[in-house]
């Protein structure tokens, strides 16, 4: 329990939720990623002479993800899940709290060291790839930025990674606009993996894709996890996909984790009324069930 006793990591009192809540993981040696009472607020300008307000996007979030585990983070738009992802990736400093990778606190100034351990895949494979670079170039950028290997080694690593994600050789010299949505997402995955990180933060990775392509990408994520022993934080609003892919689920609402547990606990016996409402809203392809009567205003 090194992380728990490290005063540097716990400059705020430990929340009871981390140790006591159902589905929380114990032991620290096998923890890949840990968030300790992480919060982030944004200032709101309301006018020249009015006092500035603030909005609490993420409030006291504590989560642990074990090595090789997939944690699903679910919640509706505006719940803070993307702000949380940005903090994990070092793209946004937290207002308070810490992020620990492999039990060590990350220094937000060392973005480069962080990038070798944790990498993102975003929802929109159209805007996340540089349109003026070829596929092989795009995947090689992280290797060049980090000065990994010689030019020849970099070329080999890029080709190997593109082969692994199922990009045929002829596509390696193409530009993003020549690719389908599914192929672009494969390129984004290859770029995320080329530095061999331990953790992938997948932010709605299949939301922009057609269902037949979504299945191909989900299969690829499952294969890559088995191949590299990766740890995934899988952020999604699609509960069907989440149930298929994850080991544990955390439900986020208004900046807080309102419930977390194993896949079975959440999908078979959710306790929090908000979780139950989310589950009831998910429309499974089963005719005859009709449409649920959702009282959303109860949580407004």
């Amino acid at each position, binding site marked *: 329990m090194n992380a728990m006793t490290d005063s540097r990591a716990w400059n705020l009192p430990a929340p009871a939720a981390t140790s006591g809540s159902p589905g929380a993981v114990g032991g620290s040696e096998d923890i890949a990623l840990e968030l300790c009472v992480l919060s982030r607020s944004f200032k709101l300008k309301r006018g020249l002479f009015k006092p500035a307000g603030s909005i609490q996007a993420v409030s006291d979030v504590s989560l642990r993800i074990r090595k090789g585990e997939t944690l699903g983070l679910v919640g*509706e*738009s505006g719940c803070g899940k993307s702000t949380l992802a940005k903090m994990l990736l070092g793209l946004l400093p937290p207002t308070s709290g810490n992020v620990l990778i492999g039990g060590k606190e990350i220094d937000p100034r060392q973005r480069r060291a962080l990038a070798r351990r944790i990498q993102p895949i975003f929802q929109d494979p159209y805007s996340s790839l540089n349109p003026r670079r070829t596929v092989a170039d795009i995947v090689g950028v992280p290797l060049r930025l980090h000065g990994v290997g010689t030019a020849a080694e970099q070329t080999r690593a890029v080709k190997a990674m593109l082969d692994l994600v199922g990009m045929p050789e002829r596509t390696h010299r193409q530009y993003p606009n020549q690719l*389908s*949505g*599914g192929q672009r997402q494969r390129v984004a995955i290859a770029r995320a993996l080329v530095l061999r990180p331990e953790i992938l933060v997948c932010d709605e990775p299949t939301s922009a894709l*057609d*269902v*037949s*392509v*979504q*299945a*191909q990408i*989900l*299969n690829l994520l*499952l*294969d890559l996890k088995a191949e590299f022993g990766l740890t995934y934080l899988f952020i999604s*609003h699609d*509960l*069907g*996909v989440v*149930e*298929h*892919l994850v080991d544990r689920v955390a439900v986020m609402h208004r900046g807080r984790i309102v419930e977390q547990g194993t*896949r079975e606990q959440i*999908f078979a016996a959710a306790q929090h009324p908000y979780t139950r*409402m*989310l589950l*009831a*809203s*998910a*429309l*499974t*392809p*089963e*005719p*005859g*069930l*009709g*449409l*649920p*009567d*959702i009282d*959303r205003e109860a949580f407004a």
Partner: protein
Amino acid sequence: MSILLDVKNLRVDLPTERGMLHAVRGIDFQVRRGEMLCLVGESGCGKSMTSLALMGLLPARARRSADRLQFDGLDLQAQDERGMSRLRGARMSMIFQEPMTSLNPSYTLGDQLCEALRAHRKVTAAEARERALYLLERAGVPQAADRLRQYPHQLSGGLRQRVMIAMALMCGPDLIIADEPTTALDVTIQAQILRLIRELQQEFGTAVVFITHDLGVVARIADRVAVMYAGEVVETAPVDQLFDQPSHPYTQGLLRCIPVRGKTLPGSRLQAIPGVVPSLVGEVQGCAFANRCSQVRPACSVAPPFAEVAPGHAVRCVTAAHPATLAEVA
């Protein structure tokens, strides 16, 4: 129920730099009065082009042709722009995915709702306002009277979509075309809006062509379903039959690749459909799905007819239409 909309061999062609894009390639379907028909398919399958073709709202360079395009006995192909304007908004209206693109940001909601009615009916301003208020309340918009004075940007996405639904109903249309109306919304709001559309459709007896890519939505809202692939309707059936006995290999593939609780083993590989949709620039030879189909056979090199396999259940696939011949081949 009588036929409200009758479409036979509808084609939409779009000239592009690379050649003629055949966005809709000869589709047939009918919508009965008061029924909910879901047009389902993936991006580029021609479902949105179909809806624009019905409304006479295609881009200027697009070419539309059909053997029959009848709305309540009226030949839509014989209507000029003025004739279509009289129909649109009055007897057939549309709900889009992003309400902000169809609401005017510089007019109040009250102005826009009332205009929809006063453009087509001789009513006083007070009568129009009364109907707007009634429909906003029916669409579940809280404080409806105050909302009439508000502008679109003052509303959340879910509320804007409720206003769009109220606006589509202002003239009491026979047909509403809803193009992915809940795709941009959160799941809980989506469930509420779908329920609202279904309730109002049944209450007012309005026929709805509901366009979506989401089979979960289709299962819960449709009376009948038309599955589109590469510019064609490949299968049409009542909703229960489509999900119980999908007959086109593409429909079967779509249903297999979505993880479903209790049916799909968590963490198992999904049965993805291999390959990609063919380009619709130039002519497609034979069955458009053949290059991705696991049941492909020599007969698939000829374009298959749209054949009935059961009452109300038609499929564009030689294997599905003649399973016996497949057994002989095997």
